[in-house]
């Protein structure tokens, strides 16, 4: 296997607060290959955003204890000087955010904001950066880009703003694009367009993509691999096929059952996962999912299950035996889909 583009090892991100230590990310390891699309799935507070904000160096080191390593193209981003990290951030690695309504600066023209990103990393003049910005706006499917570049974010619709954010993120031809809930704030019809756009640009720019989402349905068509996060840890990782058709973790099953289906014959109710996300300060003992798990055993309450590979690189952190996992999945999860 070639050297991965991004290799995260045993990353922990803990925030000391007045109420106690918030273990937002608690020892995760994963890697992204050149050209891969990785989906990171989990509910709010599972640590999926924080782990990638840490990768980008956007978590304030003064406010968080960060340990582990984040190797990007061979460099450990957690130890390189801030100056050097800045040359990577936005250029080789860029990020788009959940809410395009608030992610663009309201006082600057859209074209200016993209040109600013270009000029930060490339020694080009204002006019050339502007032309490149206009070109990028065209490539992300914004009609009449020359005129639109002169407009302010409030003159753009939500979908258009997210396109502009994507244009900004891709303007320096990065090797890794991190999309943090890129469609959550958008209309359903626009969601598919944005995901298709990311897909298309990914091959056009030959970039790797990490899509962070809480919606397993979103990542199905667009990801090569998926990892499911819960309470700051990865509980299941595998290729998209593994996760959708051979899932080995009760939490993933819960997520799968909560995907609405339009083609279902019966008027079945969606089955939400019982309970609420765990506190990241007092994480439940043993397996953090055990208070909400329908298949909980005694061992789950005391012993934290390791992330065990079952076959190849499909791994899950659950005490159930492989046979039980396969049986329960085919009997109780697959039949509903």
């Amino acid at each position: 296997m070639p050297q991965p583009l991004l290799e995260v090892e045993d990353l922990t991100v803990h925030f000391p607060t007045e109420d106690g230590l918030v273990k937002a990310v608690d020892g995760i390891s994963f890697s992204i290959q050149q050209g891969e699309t990785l989906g990171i799935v989990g509910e709010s507070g599972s640590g999926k955003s924080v782990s990638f904000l840490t990768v980008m160096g956007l978590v304030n080191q003064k406010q968080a204890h960060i340990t582990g390593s984040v190797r990007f193209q061979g460099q450990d981003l957690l130890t390189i000087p801030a100056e050097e990290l800045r040359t990577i951030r936005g250029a080789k690695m860029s990020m788009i955010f959940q809410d395009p309504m608030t992610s663009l600066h309201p006082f600057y023209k859209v074209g200016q904001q993209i040109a600013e990103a270009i000029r930060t990393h490339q020694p080009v003049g204002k006019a050339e950066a502007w032309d490149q910005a206009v070109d990028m706006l065209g490539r992300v499917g914004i009609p009449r880009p020359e005129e639109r570049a002169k407009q302010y974010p409030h003159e753009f619709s939500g979908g258009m703003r997210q396109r502009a954010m994507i244009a900004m993120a891709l303007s320096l031809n990065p090797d890794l694009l991190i999309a943090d809930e890129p469609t959550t704030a958008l209309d359903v019809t626009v969601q598919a367009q944005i995901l298709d756009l990311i897909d298309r640009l990914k091959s056009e720019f030959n970039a790797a993509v990490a899509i962070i989402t809480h919606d397993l349905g979103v990542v199905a068509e667009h990801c090569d691999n998926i990892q499911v996060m819960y309470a700051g840890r990865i509980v299941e990782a595998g290729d998209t096929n593994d996760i959708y058709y051979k899932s080995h973790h009760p939490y993933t099953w819960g997520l799968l059952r909560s995907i609405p289906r339009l083609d279902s014959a019966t008027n079945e109710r969606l089955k939400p996962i019982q309970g609420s996300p765990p506190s990241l300060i007092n994480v439940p003992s043993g397996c953090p999912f055990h208070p909400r798990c329908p298949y909980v055993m005694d061992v789950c309450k005391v012993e934290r299950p390791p992330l065990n590979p079952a076959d190849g690189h499909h791994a899950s952190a659950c005490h159930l035996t492989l046979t039980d996992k396969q049986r329960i999945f085919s009997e109780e999860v697959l039949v509903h889909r």
Partner: protein
Amino acid sequence: MGRYLIRRTLFLILVLWIVSVVTFVIFVKLPPGDPARRATGGRGASEEQIEAARHNFGLDKPILTQYLRFAKGLVPWPSWFLYDEVYHSYGSNVPVKEQVFSRLPVTIALAVGAAVMWLLLGVPIGIISAVKRRTIIDRASMVFALIGVSAPVFWLAQLALYIFWFKLEWMPGSGIPLDQGVFKAMLTGRFIMPWVVLSLTFAAFYARMIRGNLIETMGEEYIRTARAKGLSERKVVFRHGLRAALTPAVTLFGLDLGGLLGGAIITESVFNLPGIGKLAIQSIYNSDFPMVMGITIIGAFFIIIANLLVDVAYAFLDPRVRYE
């Protein structure tokens, strides 16, 4: 924009009219003394003399006639402002316009100088405080701000005079010598203490406001976007943070400056500066209605114009604001 400006100008006239009516009503209904009696020198004057003065001032006419007379003096015709025939001081017997315009440079010098000073003081302190949040520098700045907003101007002014003029003799005393113009008075340092004292309260307030605004802005998502682009922290703060944090401060600044141009009454009184504010106080004591009216109208005019300028400036600063 053009239409908007026309509408605002009409509004300006309406507000000035309302202000003038209110001033007139207050003066006629709640007279703080008899202007005629005062003008004739009080007790020594005979009833005939007082009656003559009253007739002279037009105060023996029905109220409506009086009002029309004063109102007509405000209309910019035949004179362009404060018609001399009507707006003639009861006390000093000179045209109001002349008095006001001779006092205006002092007030302008005081207000503009103080404004420059409080911006130079308040804005950097606010920025540093926000950027170095929760450090010693931040705490020290906020203690300064607390003292600044709490200390009354008249007390600060007396204190400054006592220490720097009376005790240390570093500064010239209060007032402006008759042979000095405003410019010369500025050069000889007569405005330094008034500027500092007047600006301290504002500087403290601005520091607190800008600190708050900037801290709030730095938590916005577009700041995270700016960082994600790889911008240096300095550019993030100055180009992205400050741009949004300072815009609301512009509004306040316009209004504060506009208000001060109508007279910084306390500062002018304590430092004995012959500005509009001091003139206003004297005129009120003397029941000098034409003068009071003239000053009130000038003050209101400054505030309304400041309001208008602020709103227009805002449209340029914040692209989301458009007037039509």
